[in-house]
Every structure is written in structure tokens, then in C-alpha cells.
């Protein structure tokens, strides 16, 4: 957002490199890692949508349940009404946005710690509905036999089964890119500047006539929408969903991604989730130690990079200077 001329090509090159890796990797890795990458892409949408909410300063613990709302919406619509995968993505998003709008009315009256606890309670209330109301939601066991993405046919020419690994992967890439583009655009617009201002000093924003609650609601609902889209993707890929998937453990992972990556920039949380997913795969065979290792990573990051991994590039010149390596840079004004 505030990149200067020197950092622009670097940003561009790194984005191209990232996209190249995502395009080539599925053909190299086996089916297991392909599945990991699909989940990574879906989670990228989740964590990017979470950042929309943190932009106004609230760390919502209801975000993962909102992903679940999108997933349950897609599952129910496809099971009972045969709604297709394509339509279920926006519908899942809208359902989650609707639920987000309903819970944000009381939530946005709270600040800081109260918001934290309030959003946790709202998320648990959503989860309890799935567990209690067995009729549509299937209770603790959740829903099974959800339809997949189906296949893509072009009148007798060819038919592509979208549910097999690589086609679904690229489908996910496409949806993720569209979602990221829209969210980036929102943050980059005037709305993003206003959200940033509200985050820094909400009373000052109020005194200047900015309708603070309206903007916080906008961020919360928009975040809910994209969480719902991600949830719908998830339901159509896993084919089975249950309340436990959207429980507090998953929320903890979301917070971990966001804290490790940092939330100041758009790329921060994405960096966090990619790094942690990669580490998670590397240490997978020490399964029972994984939470401990994550804990250590969290502590190290909080101690040494309190702004998250995203602050790493900015800290490199500082570290170089600290260790006496002369730096040729433009003189500061």
C-alpha cells in the first residue's frame, strides 16, 4: 500500500515467483501434497478474510464458525436442492455474510477484550446450533455425501472431471485469486484507508464524522462473506463436514497464522500460513510434538518479530546496520 519505487520490482518479482511455484508444483508433487495445497489455498482465503476484520482492530473468534456457515450452507443446498458448486460459492458467502451481519450488531458495540469474548460466544452459539438441531445439520456427526464440483463439459467436445486432483486444484487457484483480488482491492481503496484510521484512533475518526460502526460492520460482513466462500469450497472438496472441524482448535490455528505472518500488510497473513503449512508438513512425522513446535515458533516470532514475518524485509537493513555492515541507501530527509 505504501510501497516506494525501490521495493516495487521486488514485490512484483516475488509475486510472479509465488504464482509460478503454485502453477508448477501440482505437477511435481504426489496426490497427498496436492490435497495439502488445495487446503492451503482455501485457508489462504480464510486468513485473508480474517485480516479484513483485524484491519479495524477486532480479533474475531467467530471467524472459523463463519467458514462453517458457508460450508453448511453449501452442503445443505446441494443435498436438498441440488444447487451446483458454482452457485454455492457465492450463496455460501452470502449466507455467512448474513449471519455475520446478524451477530455484528451486538458485537460491534464491544471493544477489545469484550469483543474477543463476545465473538467467541457468538461462534460457539453457531456451533451449538449445528450440534443441537439434528434435523437439517446432522448433529455432532455433521453431514456426509456432499456433492463434488461436478464436471465441465463442452458440448460433446470434451468432459473434464473437476473433482480429480489437478483440475480441482486449478479451480481452487482460480477462486482464491478472485477472492484475493477483491479483498486486496477493498483494502487498497479509500475504504481501506478509512478502516486503517478507525483502527489507529476510533474516537478521532468519530470526531471527524466517520461513521465508525458502519465501517466496522462493513469489514466484519465482507470478511464473513469471503469466509463463507472458503467454507463452501471446503464442503465440496471434503464431501463431509462436522461441527468439530470449525471448533476452537481451528480458530487457534487461524490466530497462529495471523500472528506469525503479521496483519499490517495484505501479504502478512498469507506469508504466515504458507510458512506454517510448509513447516507443518516437514514435521508431520513427529505428530504429537507438532503443537509444541508451533508453540515454540509462536514464542520466537513474538519475541523477535513482534510485527510478524511481514516485518522481516524491513528489518534486514536494521539488522545489517546493527552488525556494522555499512549500508548505501538514499539519505533520509
Amino acid at each position, binding site marked *: 500500500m505504501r510501497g516506494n519505487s525501490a521495493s516495487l520490482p521486488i514485490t512484483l518479482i516475488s509475486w510472479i515467483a509465488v504464482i509460478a511455484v503454485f502453477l508448477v508444483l501440482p505437477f511435481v508433487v504426489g496426490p497427498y501434497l496436492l490435497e495439502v495445497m488445495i487446503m492451503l489455498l482455501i485457508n489462504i482465503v480464510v486468513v485473508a478474510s480474517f485480516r479484513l476484520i483485524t484491519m479495524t482492530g477486532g480479533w474475531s473468534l467467530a471467524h472459523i464458525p463463519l467458514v462453517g456457515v458457508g460450508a453448511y450452507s453449501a452442503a445443505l443446498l446441494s443435498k436438498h436442492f441440488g444447487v451446483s458448486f458454482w452457485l454455492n460459492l457465492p450463496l455460501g458467502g452470502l449466507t455467512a455474510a448474513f449471519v455475520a451481519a446478524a451477530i455484528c450488531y451486538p458485537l460491534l458495540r464491544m471493544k477489545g477484550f469484550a469483543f474477543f469474548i463476545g465473538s467467541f460466544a457468538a461462534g460457539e452459539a453457531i456451533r451449538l446450533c449445528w450440534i443441537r438441531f439434528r434435523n437439517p445439520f446432522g448433529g455432532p456427526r455433521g453431514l456426509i455425501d456432499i456433492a463434488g464440483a461436478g464436471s465441465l463439459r463442452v458440448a460433446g467436445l470434451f468432459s473434464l472431471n473437476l473433482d480429480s486432483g489437478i483440475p480441482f486444484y486449478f479451480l481452487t487457484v482460480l477462486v482464491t485469486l478472485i477472492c484475493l483480488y477483491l479483498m486486496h482491492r477493498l483494502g487498497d481503496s479509500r475504504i481501506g484507508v478509512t478502516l486503517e*484510521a478507525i483502527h489507529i484512533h476510533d474516537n478521532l475518526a468519530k*470526531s471527524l464524522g466517520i461513521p465508525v460502526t458502519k465501517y466496522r460492520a462493513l469489514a466484519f460482513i465482507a470478511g464473513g462473506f469471503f469466509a463463507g466462500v472458503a467454507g463452501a469450497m471446503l464442503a465440496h472438496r471434503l464431501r463431509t463436514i462436522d461441527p468439530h472441524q470449525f471448533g476452537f482448535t481451528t480458530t487457534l490455528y487461524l490466530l497462529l497464522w495471523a500472528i506469525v505472518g503479521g496483519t499490517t500488510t495484505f501479504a502478512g497473513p498469507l506469508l504466515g500460513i504458507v510458512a506454517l503449512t510448509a513447516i507443518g508438513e516437514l514435521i508431520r512425522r513427529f505428530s504429537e510434538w507438532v503443537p509444541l513446535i508451533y508453540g515454540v515458533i509462536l514464542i520466537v516470532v513474538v519475541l523477535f518479530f513482534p510485527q510478524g514475518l511481514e516485518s522481516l524485509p524491513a528489518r534486514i537493513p536494521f539488522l545489517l546496520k546493527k552488525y556494522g555492515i555499512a549500508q548505501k541507501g538514499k539519505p533520509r530527509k
Partner: protein
Amino acid sequence: MALLELAGLTKRFGALVAVDELNVSIERGEIRGLIGPNGSGKTTVFNLATGFYRPSAGRVLWQGEDVTLLSPERRAKLGIIRTFQQAALFGEMTVVNNVIVACHLHLDVGLAGQFLKTPKMRAVQRRIEARADEILELMGLLEVKHEVAGDLPHGSQRVLGIAMALASQPQLLLLDEPAAGMNPVETERLMSIIRMLRDKGTTMFLVEHDMKAVMSTCDRITVMDFGQGIAEGTPHEVAKNAAVIEAYLGGG
């Protein structure tokens, strides 16, 4: 008709009466001072006038209309803008972006237009940027427009706070101790800015501790003590008022 009228305004915090049946009426075009010993309720009056607090009793009238229950955002929209006692700015943003955000009331493009960056939005954005430059020039901050606001020296931060309030084109500007922590040179410069703004047509309501600044700048002064208005008049009249002297020198 008075621009802003506080009628029988009262604010109680539990047993403490912070503001006690205060009556103030501010005419268009004046600089009104509000002075009083520490803890006499001046900042509470500002919070009541701008909607950050709800009064326990009494009313706030804006050009004759009751605005007692309106939120700060709504009052800002009507033209009642305040600054804060602590240097209040968006510290992580650049100076110019602070002023651009402060132009929010004059954005008049919907959320969709902002998101889509329509031609209208681009035009409005250019207009706001030009206006921000104008205001920064007026306040003598143009040279530092690309600096991070939180890095400015204290005096400049306070001036930026006023620049931001001006960006929303207030009819009434409430300044809460604008000269706090300033050296005499900065204070004098600030007061000349305030007089210049008055000459440009902005009405101001000013809380300030620096007596010299208050006496030389304000047209009329209201004096508070223990939440009550004890005197009102020109600087000259107030300075001679027995109750005021009593309050400041302490009689009991």
C-alpha cells in the same frame, strides 16, 4: 440565534456533579474561551457538546435545534468538530493522509463507488488531495506532508490536529487545550492561526490554560469552577471579576 447553546447542561458521574446547570451561548463568528481551575469540568463540557457524553440533564441546541441525543459522527456532519487534549492524530499515517482521512465528510461517494474506484471517485479523490495541500500550506505543514505524523515534533502534531479539524470544514471548532505543552513561540504562532481562522469565518470554542494566550485571543470568556459557570464576559471584564479571582487564587 446562537450558533451553539448549552441550556442547563448537567453531567453527573455517580455522586460527583462534573457539570452543574451550565448555560453557555456561542454566537457565530466569535472566539469563545472556556477557562477554570483543573477539574472544573471544562473537558466534560466539550464531551457533552460534541456528543461523546450524554448529559444527565439539560439540552444542547445547534442553531436552535435540539441535538442532545445525536452521536459525535452526526454532530460532525452538522459542522461541530472538536480536537482532543492529547495530540490526536493517525500516528502511523503520513501527514497528508491524516488530512485526507479528515476530509471524510466531503467524500460524498458511496461505498460501492469507493470500492470500484469509479471516475467520480477519482475526481473526488483528486479534489480532496488538492484541498489537503491547501490546508497544509495554510497551517505551514506543507514541507512535512510526506512524513509520518507520529514523528513530527509536538507543536507540529498539535497544529496538524487543528488542520484535520479544519479539513472537515467546521462551522464550530472546539479546541481542547491546543497550546498544551507548546513553547511560547509555538503558542503565539498557534494563536495567530486561530485568529486568522476566526477572520475566515470559523467560530471557535477554546479551552486553554495559558492565560496570556486566552486573554489576547478570545472575544468572550466563560469561567467555570466546580462544574458551575461563575462568570462570563470580555477578557477585560472577567479579569476584574471578584468570583473569578476567588476561584483562581483559592478562598476556601
